């Protein structure tokens, strides 16, 4: 690298961004150079993706500026960033899988001849872009026929569109978790392409939480934590433990002076106080053996005892929700054995899982799409799974029994609602919606409860309530499987922690081993080859 490369091409200064109650970024400043692959790292929710999206103009920052070669970009303008030469490649970006690769690449500007689409011209144009990255891709094929890795390559190719002189207009490309859905060999190809683009003088901003990728293909790495900037390191001069330490901010943990405690930590401590919790060591209530599901789960086994909260840690896409879906009978391609109280329920579907005597309950992670019925009242949202049990012959509802049941739950879970029948979940706050969903499954007949991100997007006060409910339910002998991406929450609530990665159980942590460092180390490591 010569001296001119040392000048930053893109500078993010004092960026702050808030989503509702969450401060996603606060006063973050990072500068990026041409010709480098610059990683943005951090835990789930650290703000790395948000920063990438602010740079590309997908999100509008509340304060701060992004400037490219000294010229400030218009905040929140994808178009402005695009014309200045900033591109973003990420999973959610619109692609039309039914159209050919070439049509996808030329969507915004299809070549025409006498009013009709000029397919030959389009193919040539697409090939000139795609073949510099992967000459084996057939651009006339529908995009949906390609593997995820090749689709990603096509997206990158689309960002390399050319100007009139034939050279690319792109200056900065943001890769947002580019390898999260790719196989290892595809990821390697992608990293090679990344290096090649940087060698051509582009600035690559690489958002990722995969440790190995940072060390193989990045030049520098900036770490974010809780929306704050921590440090920028030259990759060659740093070790993995140091990086993990920066990500989780270990130094904060031992400080117990109370002055810098986050509200969430206080909430957790209230629950954890005097927690002399004993777990029944006898027969496990839930016994899962060698659960497999193509592309989702790989030989997962676990035991869950009555009164135990078993935490499941891991990064986004580690297969945690997929595991829950499989246990609950929603994954049709799943194989393996699931025993509840010694009874096999694998392959028998959801009905078998929730019926009396088995008593599985599942609070899914996405309450809007997977949980609530917005056309029904609070009452029916709460009693959905037990409605047949409390109804009379022929499924005729007993309105008074229903109402009593609902009132009890509303009271026990302190759900604030204007009315039981008329109010729909859409009128409740996020916290009350979540409590409603938990209330749905905390019934007398529930024996095993699967909780997937039970406190996502709710305020701190409600979080504390939810923590208390979870611990109290465990004291009552409920067996709870808990997925949470919030490390302090996972650590405070769990009796044991399983760490998942790429559909496998990577390890189990008990007692003293349960630390953020250990979870993150297990979660970010490569899968061990099978048989070792």
């Amino acid at each position, binding site marked *: 690298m010569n001296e001119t490369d040392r000048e930053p091409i893109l500078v993010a200064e004092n960026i702050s961004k808030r989503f509702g109650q969450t401060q996603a970024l606060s006063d973050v400043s990072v500068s990026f150079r041409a010709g480098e692959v610059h990683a943005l790292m951090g835990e789930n929710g650290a703000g790395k993706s948000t920063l990438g999206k602010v740079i590309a103009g997908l999100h509008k920052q509340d304060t701060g500026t992004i400037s490219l070669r000294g010229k400030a970009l218009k905040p929140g303008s994808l178009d402005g960033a695009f014309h200045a030469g900033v591109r973003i490649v990420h999973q959610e970006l619109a692609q039309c899988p039914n159209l050919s690769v070439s049509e996808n690449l030329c969507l915004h500007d299809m070549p025409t001849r006498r009013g009709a689409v000029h397919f030959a011209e389009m193919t040539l144009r697409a090939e000139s872009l795609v073949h510099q990255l992967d000459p084996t891709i057939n651009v006339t094929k529908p995009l949906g026929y390609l593997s995820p890795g090749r689709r990603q390559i096509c997206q990158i190719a689309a960002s390399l569109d050319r100007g009139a002189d034939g050279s690319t207009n792109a200056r900065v490309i943001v890769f947002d978790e580019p390898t999260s859905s790719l196989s290892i060999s595809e990821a390697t190809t992608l990293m090679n392409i990344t290096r090649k683009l940087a060698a051509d003088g582009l600035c690559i901003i690489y958002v990722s939480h995969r440790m190995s990728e940072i060390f193989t293909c990045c030049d520098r790495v900036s770490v974010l934590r809780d929306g704050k900037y921590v440090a920028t390191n030259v990759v060659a001069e740093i070790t993995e433990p140091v990086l993990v330490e920066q990500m989780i901010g270990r130094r904060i943990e031992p400080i117990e002076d109370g002055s810098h405690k986050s509200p969430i930590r206080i909430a957790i401590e209230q629950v954890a106080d005097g927690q002399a919790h004993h777990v029944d060591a006898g027969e496990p209530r839930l016994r899962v053996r060698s659960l497999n599901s193509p592309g989702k789960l790989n030989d997962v086994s676990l035991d869950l005892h009555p009164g135990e909260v078993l935490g499941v840690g891991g990064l986004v896409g580690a297969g945690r929700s997929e595991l829950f879906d499989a246990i*609950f009978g*929603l994954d049709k391609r799943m194989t393996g054995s699931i025993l509840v109280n010694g009874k096999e329920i694998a392959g028998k579907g*959801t*009905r078998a*899982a*929730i019926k009396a005597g088995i008593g599985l309950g*599942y609070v*899914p992670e996405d309450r809007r*799409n*997977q*949980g*609530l*019925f*917005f*056309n*029904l009242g609070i009452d*029916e949202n709460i009693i*959905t*799974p037990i*409605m*047949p049990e409390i*109804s009379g012959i*022929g*499924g*005729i*509802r007993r*309105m008074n029994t229903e109402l009593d049941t609902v009132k009890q739950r509303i009271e026990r879970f302190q759900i604030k609602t204007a009315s039981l029948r008329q109010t*729909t979940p*859409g*009128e409740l706050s996020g916290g009350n919606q979540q409590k409603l969903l938990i209330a*749905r499954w905390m019934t007398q007949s529930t024996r095993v409860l699967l909780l997937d991100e039970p406190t996502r997007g709710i305020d701190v006060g409600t979080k504390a309530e939810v923590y208390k409910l979870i611990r109290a339910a465990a004291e009552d002998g409920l067996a709870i499987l808990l997925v949470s991406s919030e490390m302090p929450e996972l650590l405070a609530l769990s009796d044991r922690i399983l760490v998942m990665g790429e559909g496998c159980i990577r390890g189990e942590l008990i007692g003293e081993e349960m630390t953020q460092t250990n979870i993150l180390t297990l979660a970010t490591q490569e899968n061990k080859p099978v048989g070792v």
Partner: protein
Amino acid sequence: MLSRIFQHQESGLVLVIILLMSALSIYGMFYPVKVKSPTVFPESVEVHFVDKQGTEHAQGELGRNQIHAFRFTVNAETTEYPSSRVDRYDSETRTLYLQSWKNPFLNKDNLVLVAKNASFFAIMAVGMTGVIILAGIDLSVGSIYGFCAILGAMALNTLGTDASWMLSIPIGIGVCVLAGALCGLANGAMTVGFGVHPFVITLGMMATLRGLTVYTSQAMFDKQSIGHLSSSFTEGFVKREFFGVYPVPILFMVVVAIGGWFVLARTVFGRRILAIGGNETAAKYAGIPVGRVKILVYTITGALAGLSAALYIGYLGSAETNAGNAYELQVIAATVIGGASLMGGRGTALGAVLGAIIIQLINNAMVNLGVDPSVNQIVMGGAIILAVIIDQSKQRLAARRS
């Protein structure tokens, strides 16, 4: 109390019906129709035409305009009819045609006719409501109706015109409902089993069943129309006269509407239909057997189309192979006017019935106004669009308030 009534979805529909009926009644008061009722006199009648001065004249002596009254003497008993009440007198048959004026809309016969016409659609619309709440659609109800009608007619024709009601009623209704349920079951099973959008499956069924209807009728009876049904089923049951009208189909409509309301509002099955329509993914996560509920809903819809067909053949006394052609659109329209959302999750049985009644009221109004049938269709189309737009804006308003 009053505010609770207005909160209901159906209050708007009832209001529309009341407004429509009032408008038609008032129109009918200003433009009444002439009714001629004949009175036949025995041969011994003496007829005199009286002029203004009260002088009697023989037939043919006075012009129509000079006649002041008609005087009939039978067996020394004389009755006089003022000329304003008389339309004409036929001397050959000794028939006096009296004329009177009546409201073309607001009379017993017309109101029962509207309700009877609505009942065939309303019964199917109750089933369709279930399907539409599921965010599905059933385009085959018209064809199921036709198919069941032909099958039912063939069964009743085979029984003979003199069969006992103990045989004809169970068989007439049973054949139609069973055949309809089987068609609906096929719809549901294919939709769920193959995971195909119900539009496609029921579109296919619509064509298949229509063809099957014509084919069966041709192959077994060699005609397009099957009559000579058991009279114990037709005049004896479905078209039985009470107080000068034929109310049986209307009674069926009322029973089906109440049943539909009960199932949707008061049973676990009904609430599951609404839950699936509101959020199918959440329904799966809540352990609701989504596939089974869907299949059952399509089956019931088919069965109700069959029931409607049974009433149709009983009322008309025959079935034609093109019966129920394009009924699916009227049924869907009734459901949508009744407040069901094609996006799923919303709809009521009562709304569907009221929707069917509104459609028939508009139809009846067009006939009474003597409007061309093509204009009738234009008005009907406009009414459907208007109803949905009003309903949508009402929803949006309600959403903003909360």
